[in-house]
């Protein structure tokens, strides 16, 4: 094969015989999806033991949350990691969801690319139907142990326990054993739910990109969910709810014509039950009225009564071209369920120990025909580390993204925002530094991930633009707060300078004039307070004093926690800390909602 060896091989071996087409065809056979992923498990996030453990937990929790929400149940999820040996763990995730009917158990947990979420356009955490079955498969491959599923669909029905073993070559699962449990199963207190246990090779570590971090962040983005986490060291960590309101159900939508590619269009034409092209366009796409359908057909050189069967490749291409030219209303956006400013704030409040919180939900926009919306939350100050780069936490449909930060559109958007405008220092081409946590959330019917392991959001211009707009909005509020805090500190310092000397002055003046020092002192103290108050006041555009000097008083997207504000670095500043305490929304947002104030106590260790 290689030039230098040519002569040698000629001498020693007879002439190399090529394989015949027939021989080769013996080798050629279908590759099952499961086989493919078994070999390429890194594509699904099982590259190393540490990440594998996290991915397994993540897939199970994501499914649990999706199931609960779809059934309108406030999620209560129990996660347990049991360490079998140094590198072997049993992951158990139990939810209080609707349960799974017996006949679907093999499909959901035993087959790759089987699921309810791929074929529809609906906002949900899972989308491909790969996750949980891949986790089970990984477990089987590394430990040989089958997956154990217990499911209960109704209070009065028995719980079903199934042991499943994946057959990778056939992309389906064999039932190893099946047991029915009596009705009063103690596992599911609500009378329904699902529990999945997978034994796998893994490594447990706290810190960045750990199960703990994943749960921390999930709790931020899902303040309506309660998590109980039993660590391998048998510690129980609870993440309480920040709100008792379930997010509204996401609506399923039809694809928007603009978001479709030619290949997909041809596939849809092949599969459709409609007989005429006009009704096909109208019924299988969103935002296509009969008038629009007619116009598309006319432009494509056919009529809306043309038989679907008569559409060949050429016509399909013409239709595709026509779709791009015709004016079509943007897709509806009611299919998107944002976390919402209030819930975002309550999530951040209970999990991040900061002093200033703000959040922003952008109006929906469209990329490639898919509606999406961006939300950003920001926490500043408090106990956050001061001399480090800021922390960016990323979410897609409420799922934290822990890997491949640099490849993600949200990370790039944070980099491109000019934080200097908001009083935060930032070196060129790097993250700003300061005591800040920024969370960026993208909600969409179809989140464009850069890979199957769903680690980074692809960098579409429309998406990045929306992210930047949202970041700028919270940035502006942060800037206002930072400046205001600085001003209050300055005022505090000013006041303490005055107050410091007033005592000396009044005593000396008494010695000179005989006027009682206390009287002079009290009068001067009043002046000092008035003088510094004056500087606190805000002037409006016309230069007049605005009575309400607090820009955040009526802003519901901002929460300021006074107790965490460090006092100005000057003695005698009791009075100005007091001033900060009185500041705005701290009470208003919580006073009304008991669950929130409970939540702000945050994560509790038992």
């Amino acid at each position, binding site marked *: 094969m290689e030039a230098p060896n040519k002569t040698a091989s000629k001498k020693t071996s007879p002439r190399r015989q090529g394989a015949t087409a027939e021989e080769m065809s013996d080798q050629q056979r279908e590759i099952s999806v499961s086989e493919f992923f078994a070999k390429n498990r890194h594509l699904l996030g099982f590259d190393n033991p540490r990440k594998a453990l996290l991915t397994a937990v993540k897939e199970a929790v994501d499914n649990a949350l999706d199931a609960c929400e779809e059934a309108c149940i406030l999620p209560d999820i129990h996660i347990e990691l049991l360490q079998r040996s140094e590198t072997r763990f049993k992951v158990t995730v139990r939810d209080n969801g609707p349960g799974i009917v017996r006949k679907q158990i093999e499909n959901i947990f035993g087959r790759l690319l089987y699921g309810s979420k791929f074929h529809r356009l609906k906002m949900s955490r899972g989308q491909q139907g790969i996750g949980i079955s891949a986790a089970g498969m990984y477990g089987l491959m590394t430990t040989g142990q089958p997956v154990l599923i217990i499911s209960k669909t109704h209070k009065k029905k028995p719980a079903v326990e199934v042991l499943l073993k994946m057959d990778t070559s056939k992309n389906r699962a064999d039932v190893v054993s099946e047991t029915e449990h009596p009705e009063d199963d103690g596992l599911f207190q609500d009378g329904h739910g699902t529990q999945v246990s997978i034994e796998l090779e893994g490594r447990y570590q706290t810190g960045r990109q750990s199960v703990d971090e994943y749960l921390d962040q999930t709790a931020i983005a899902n303040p309506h969910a309660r998590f109980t986490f039993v660590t391998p060291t048998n510690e129980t960590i609870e993440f309480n709810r920040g709100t008792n309101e379930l997010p509204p159900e996401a609506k399923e939508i039809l694809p928007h014509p603009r978001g479709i590619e030619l290949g997909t269009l041809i596939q849809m034409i092949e599969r459709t039950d409609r007989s005429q092209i006009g009704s096909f366009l109208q019924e299988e796409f969103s935002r296509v009225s009969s008038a629009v359908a007619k116009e598309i057909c006319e432009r494509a050189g056919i009529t809306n009564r043309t038989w679907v069967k008569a559409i060949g490749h050429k016509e399909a291409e013409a239709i595709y071209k026509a779709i791009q030219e015709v004016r079509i209303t943007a897709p509806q956006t009611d299919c998107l369920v944002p976390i919402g400013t209030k819930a975002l704030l309550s999530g951040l409040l209970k999990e991040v120990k900061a002093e200033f919180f703000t959040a922003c939900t952008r109006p929906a926009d469209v990329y490639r025909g898919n509606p999406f919306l961006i939300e950003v939350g920001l926490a500043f100050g408090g106990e956050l580390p001061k001399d480090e780069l800021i922390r960016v936490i990323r979410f897609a449909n409420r799922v934290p993204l822990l890997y491949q930060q640099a490849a993600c559109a949200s990370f790039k958007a944070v980099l491109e925002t000019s934080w200097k405008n908001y009083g935060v220092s930032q070196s060129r081409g790097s993250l700003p530094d300061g005591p800040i946590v920024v969370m960026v959330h993208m909600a969409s019917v179809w989140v464009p991930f850069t890979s199957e392991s769903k680690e980074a959001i692809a960098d579409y211009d429309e998406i990045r633009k929306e992210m930047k707009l949202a970041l700028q909005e919270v940035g502006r509020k942060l800037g206002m707060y930072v400046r205001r805090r600085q001003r209050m500190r300055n005022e505090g*310092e*000013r006041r303490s*300078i*005055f107050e*410091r*000397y*007033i*005592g*000396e*002055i*009044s005593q*000396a*003046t008494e*010695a*000179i*004039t005989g*006027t009682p020092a206390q*009287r*002079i002192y009290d*009068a*001067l103290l*009043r*002046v*000092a307070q*008035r*003088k510094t108050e004056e500087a606190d006041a805000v002037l409006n555009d016309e230069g007049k004093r605005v009575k309400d000097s607090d820009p955040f008083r009526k802003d519901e997207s901002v929460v300021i926690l006074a107790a965490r504000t460090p006092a100005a670095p000057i*003695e*005698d500043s009791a009075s100005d800390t007091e001033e900060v305490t009185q500041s705005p929304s701290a009470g208003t947002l919580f006073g009304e909602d008991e669950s929130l104030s409970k939540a702000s106590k945050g994560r509790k260790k038992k």
Partner: protein
Amino acid sequence: MAKKSIREESSTASEAARARESRMMGSQGTRDKTLAKIGELGKSVAKSALAESDPFVDVPTRTMSNTTYNETRRLLQMGDATLRRNLFNTGQARKFMQTVLLSKGCKDLLEAKKTLSLRGMYYKSLHTIAGTKEKTFDDQEESDGILEDIEVALATLRENLHLFAKKRGTMVGNITVVDNGDPIDCRRMGTGGYAIPSICEPSVVQFGKCEAKFVLHVEKDTVWSRFNEDRFWEKHNCILTEGSGQPPRGVRRLLYRLNKELGLPVYCLLDCDPWGHYIYSVIKQGSINLAFESERMAIPDAKYLGIRSADFLRCGLSDDVKIALNDRDIERAKQIAEYPWFIKKKHWQKEIQLMVKNGFKMEVESLITKDISYVTEVYVPERMKAKDWID
């Protein structure tokens, strides 16, 4: 008899003490006037405080911009510009506190009929502010500056506040002075000389017998010692003074009175550098900082004997005595040349130009390279004889 004389003695002793006191403290009238002025300052502060407004003290500005040169009287005068020092201004609050505090200190002093040095007053008012770790003054310099402010703000003089500075400056020569009632023969002062007191008012220091025909003022003690050792004052019948650099107010006041009351011309022997030039300027026209005292201190007829830039060649000095001018020296020289009282004097313009052109300065001591007593035996006598000085 004996009894009576004792009583007489004791009565004269107490009289002398009273006289001494009145000399040091000034008259009862002056004291009452000063006390009243301090009282007014206090009342103004108390009044604005009780009215809940911003208390202030107006301090006349002691800067070049508020100094004018009176050409007919040939001295510097302070203008009317004042700077308002407010309590409720973060940059001024501390100084305001210090002003009130030191005013109170002066009041105590006047009422106790005692005097204090500037340093004493600094210590008297120095303490830690209640509830803080901050001291009322960081150093004496801070307190000295405020005391000068009070002096001008109350339009009074330091001695009327019963304050005096550290003694600096020495005198020797053919004169007898009476210092606080003690006659002092300045012809018999040994090597040390008579230490010129900080307060040289006529009430404290009076002139007695004087044969001297002129005053030679030298910049510093080392040069003065040379002249004293060589008995220059005896040979040339004069008074020899030194002011340890920039002469303090006591020395300037004494020189002024020697000039004014005894009619003695004053000649200055100073270093050839901007510093020396400005000493001459202060003796002659008064200082910018204390322009309000020029009238009591400036000697418009004082002459600058040397040393001068041309002396390097004229006296044939070696290169070793050259001290290179630095940027600050050159800048200062140009500033001095621009002063209104120098700008019209051709000799001075030439002198400063030559110094800058030479690029070096010289100290009086550089003449010692010629001969130990060159300065006393050759340099000064020759210049005096030839009337070779600049005005």
